[in-house]
């Protein structure tokens, strides 16, 4: 890493060694995922009752999200304070306490060590030293912030408030989908992508590709450059949102430049695409990226959080949690389930993206000293009233360089 070059302030070139270097990855875990950021760990609706827990990750760091008897949410490292056992092996479930199987050290749902078997020994023999204190051996606790049913964790000692962290512009878009209504989890999709995690953020901060790559979006006008759109960021550039409005399947000046526009492509079962408006305002799609591990997807009526779990420099898991609202009627739920066909590992749209990310990683890995070119829409970082720009990716790297000191 040390001997790698990246001209200070350069945002229109991203060197490819960033995506494969092991030292860069280690520093990312420490400064980004382990730093003063808020990482998405799950939806509160996944752990509705006391003792309900869910395995999750902060970067590649295994944690457990668990609701305690008071109803409060806790996030603890999935690592026993005794000898490091990953005590929680079930992906989700309900428990009255957290017990490590190896020596049955038992923690309460807040992570406090409550019992150490044979601690006093037997018949005056063995056991822990007299000065051994349970308080000294709690599970590592992470900071927790919940907003409207979405749960974040932070390993930082004193993270900012989630609201300040998001900033007003991002908060408004966040609250647009998470408006306080109870959420209903519809299900999950998980995929392991053989590519660096940053490629996922670039993809969702890149409205340019959507108008070109995705036949489904372009042909059916779900997301296309010639429709009213904007790119919005927070002041740091680390968060962003692509906002757009649905159009129709008709040719235009723009579609002429889009090889993916297929005027004759028709669905035999149109139920796949029968969106209804459900959010205030004109926007029919808002894709929001929240630094450093969350994407909030609202495309027509399909809603999902996408969590990134890094798996070394060359892979990441993408975990999609699809949801609706507790007050959805059957028709709306059916609609969400049908539209989910667009998304995920088998998504009529998303397959294109997961393939592109793997093609990207395969292409850039052999050439660490080559670089990506990010000049679309200029060379600066600023909100735009259109989507023919890579500004949000430049914003991402501006913040990335600051945090990584690269």
């Amino acid at each position, binding site marked *: 890493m040390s001997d790698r070059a990246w001209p200070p302030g350069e945002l229109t070139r991203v060197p490819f060694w960033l995506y494969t270097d092991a030292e860069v990855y280690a520093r990312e875990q420490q400064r980004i995922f382990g730093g003063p950021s808020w990482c998405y760990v799950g939806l509160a609706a996944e752990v509705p009752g006391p003792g309900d827990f869910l395995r999750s990750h902060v970067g590649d760091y295994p944690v457990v999200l668990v609701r305690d008897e008071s109803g409060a949410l806790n996030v603890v490292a999935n690592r026993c304070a005794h000898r490091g056992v990953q005590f929680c092996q079930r992906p989700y479930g309900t428990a009255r306490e957290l017990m490590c199987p190896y020596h049955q050290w038992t923690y309460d749902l807040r992570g406090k060590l409550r019992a150490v078997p044979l601690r006093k020994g037997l018949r005056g023999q063995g056991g822990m030293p007299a000065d051994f204190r349970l308080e000294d051996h709690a599970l590592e606790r992470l900071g927790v912030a919940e907003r409207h049913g979405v749960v974040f964790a932070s390993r930082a000692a004193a993270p900012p408030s989630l609201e300040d962290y998001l900033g007003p512009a991002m908060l408004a878009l966040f609250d647009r989908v998470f408006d306080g209504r109870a959420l209903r989890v519809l299900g*999950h999709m998980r995929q392991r992508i053989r590519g660096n995690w940053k490629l996922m953020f670039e993809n969702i901060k890149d409205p340019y590709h959507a108008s070109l790559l995705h036949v489904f979006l372009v042909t059916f006008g779900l997301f296309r450059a010639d429709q009213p759109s904007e790119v919005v960021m927070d002041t740091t550039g680390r968060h962003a949102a692509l906002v757009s409005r649905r159009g129709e399947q008709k040719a235009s000046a723009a579609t002429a430049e889009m090889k993916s526009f297929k005027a004759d492509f028709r669905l035999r079962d149109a139920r796949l695409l029968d969106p209804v408006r459900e959010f205030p305002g004109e926007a029919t799609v808002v894709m929001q990226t929240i630094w450093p591990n969350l994407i909030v997807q609202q495309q027509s009526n399909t809603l999902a959080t996408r969590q990134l779990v890094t798996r070394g420099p060359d892979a990441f898991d993408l975990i999609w949690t699809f949801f609706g609202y507790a007050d959805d009627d059957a028709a709306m739920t059916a609609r969400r389930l049908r539209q989910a066909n667009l998304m995920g590992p088998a998504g009529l749209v998303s397959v294109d993206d997961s393939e592109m990310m793997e093609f990207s990683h395969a292409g850039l890995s052999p050439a660490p000293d080559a670089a990506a070119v990010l000049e679309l829409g200029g060379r600066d970082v600023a909100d735009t009233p259109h989507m023919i720009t890579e500004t949000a990716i430049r914003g991402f790297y501006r913040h990335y360089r600051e945090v990584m000191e690269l």
Partner: protein
Amino acid sequence: MSERLLLRLELEELNAAYAAALDEDALEQWPELFVADATYRIVPRDDFERGLPLAVMHCESRAMLEDRVAALRRASVYAPRALRHLISGVRMQRIDGAVIHAAASYAVLQTLPEELTTVFSAGRYLDEVVREDGVLKFRSRIVVFDSVLVPGSLVYPL
């Protein structure tokens, strides 16, 4: 020979045709193995056991299967790959009226360009099969895959 065994042999034929359509790039034949109002869903084991309604692939009609095939031919962008189905333990579970309830285990091996063959998915099929003009067809197939994790993209049906 027992009705039961005979029916199993027919179910095995149906599964063999299903696998051949997907593995030998005869995708257009795949929807023909389903009745018009058939449902087809691919669900991860965890969600299936929790009874969550979402599916990774969710089709509510043969037409939707045909749309999937059309998308594979004309819309989706993906690296070329070879898939290979191994289907085992085909069994008839019960007959209820005109509907045969059946199940089977499957594994799908995948080969990507310049790579070795790897296990892509394993799981089971839960089927409702009916006879249409004397031929067995799927009225419903639920693919429950054992891993909650898909390696890369799930381009083709399982």
